[in-house]
């Protein structure tokens, strides 16, 4: 079996006594798009944050591009990595948050070049040129000198996508990237994401936009109460769900 982009085996995560993820198994192939759907509180965000080790898992194994996230396996045991090493291993994935989370004290250009300059140590000129290409690509080529607060939500989210892409990740994680947006701004962000998918970026997307999932996803995973209830191609999970819980959820969302 070749290595997957993301591979989860029995991933468990608890906050105190409360178990949020109760053994998640899934596989995301290279260059594929996986949409994660499920009711509020089912652990979608938590799982996404585990993938790039913003949360530590309590049990199971989580591999990104073939290597363990945040841990090193030595003599059959997992050893937690130091912060620096964890940070380095995170660079394989980029993350886009529900509330954009841009750096408010930096310009749009500053937001995009910050991590590449600080972390990758490549020449500044090269990074700025790349950032300009990314900004053009998300349709904000002329806004490099603005501050995040001066942009609309949709524009901020597109900057957030460009910022993540500037690190040249192999995998993009999206946590409900459009649910904080006014309805008329959702389309512009989804369009950028569709382009990315077409270019072959591996993506895991938590979303309530079922039309997007139907159109773009190779795989849809329905989660509820910390377990994967159902997974498969969108035509199967969204249009012909087998489980009662999936049916109940879809009837509410539609």
């Amino acid at each position, binding site marked *: 079996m070749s290595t997957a982009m993301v591979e989860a085996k029995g991933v468990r995560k608890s906050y105190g006594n409360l178990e949020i993820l109760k053994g998640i198994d899934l596989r995301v192939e290279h260059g594929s798009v996986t949409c994660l759907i499920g009711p509020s509180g089912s652990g979608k965000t938590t799982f996404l944050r585990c993938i790039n080790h913003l949360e530590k898992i309590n049990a199971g194994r989580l591999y990104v591009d073939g290597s363990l996230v945040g841990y090193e396996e030595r003599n059959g045991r997992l050893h937690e990595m130091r912060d620096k090493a964890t*940070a380095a291993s*995170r660079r394989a994935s980029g*993350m886009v*948050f529900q*509330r954009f*989370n*841009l*750096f408010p*004290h930096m310009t749009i250009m500053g937001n995009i070049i910050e991590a590449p300059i600080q972390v990758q140590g490549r020449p500044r000129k090269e990074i700025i040129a790349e950032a300009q290409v990314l900004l053009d690509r998300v349709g904000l080529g002329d806004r490099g000198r603005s501050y995040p607060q001066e942009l609309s939500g949709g524009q901020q989210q597109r900057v957030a996508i460009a910022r993540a892409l500037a*690190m040249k990740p192999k995998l993009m994680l999206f946590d409900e990237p459009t649910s904080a947006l006014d309805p008329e701004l959702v389309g512009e962000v989804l369009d950028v994401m569709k382009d990315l998918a077409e270019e072959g970026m591996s993506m895991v997307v938590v979303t309530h936009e079922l039309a997007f999932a139907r159109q773009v996803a190779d795989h849809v995973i329905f989660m509820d109460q910390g377990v994967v209830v159902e997974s498969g191609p969108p035509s199967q999970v969204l249009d012909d769900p087998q489980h009662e819980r999936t049916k109940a959820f879809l009837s509410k969302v539609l």
Partner: protein
Amino acid sequence: MQTQKPLEQAGHVPATAVEESAPVIALKHPVRNAIAVLIVVVAALAAIDVALNDRYHWDVVASYLFAPRILTGAVLTLVLTLVSMSVGISLGAVLAIMRLSENPILSMIARAYIWFFRGTPLLVQLIFWYNIAALYPVIALGLPFGGPSMVLGSANVLISPLGAALLGLSLNEAAYMAEIIRGGIGSVDRVQYDASKALGMSGSKLMRRIILPQAMRVVLPPTGNQVISMLKGTSLVSVLAISDLLYSAQIIYSENYQTIPLLIVASLWYLLMTTILSFFQEKLERHYGRGFDSVIKRKRSRKVRSA
């Protein structure tokens, strides 16, 4: 309901030309304006009275304003303030980060430091450092040469009155600055850590580039207060026989009995220094306010004006 109807009508029926061009009349505040005028008049009269009152001895004020002893005192006060604040802020930042650390020992050390230095009078701390040589001749044993008496002497040199003053002021200030900076760091949205970690940043870079610059917005105003109270608080070091601005003025009026004029001289210098420092504070606040609401509003209104 009542306001809605005319609005709807306005949409359909064009308003008359007279109504459209009618000038907007701003709300008037007669009582407020009257009070303001009254205050201005009273203040002006008081100022004239002060200026014309011979007993203030303005001629003495003028003759001492640039007296060498006063100038030396002013420079010393400024140096004490700037050095103590610089050390205080740097050490304070370290203490704040220690205090917020997940390591309980580091956190406890910072807590204990802050507890001690905020909890004891600055005057006592200053006198303590001044007398450290007498209290701890033991320090001397670390020195490579000589008997106890000789060593005591060199310890005294080691901590001169000025050294004791700088040490006392800096260490005390660090405790206050630690709490101010801790508050600033705490005010930064937690998601900023997530966002920068997700981009592969960590450790001191994350702190220096992302968190501290945002904390500055909250840290600066109280720090401005600290600088200004430090400026005046340095006069406490006169107990160590250091001739700062206020102490220099006091020495002069103990000779010529011109108490009020010399205190005015000192105050004018304090005012000047405070003004300059406040100017820098405002500049810094504007710098670190970039990208946050207040500054944007300023920019927008400027754009509107030019439009």
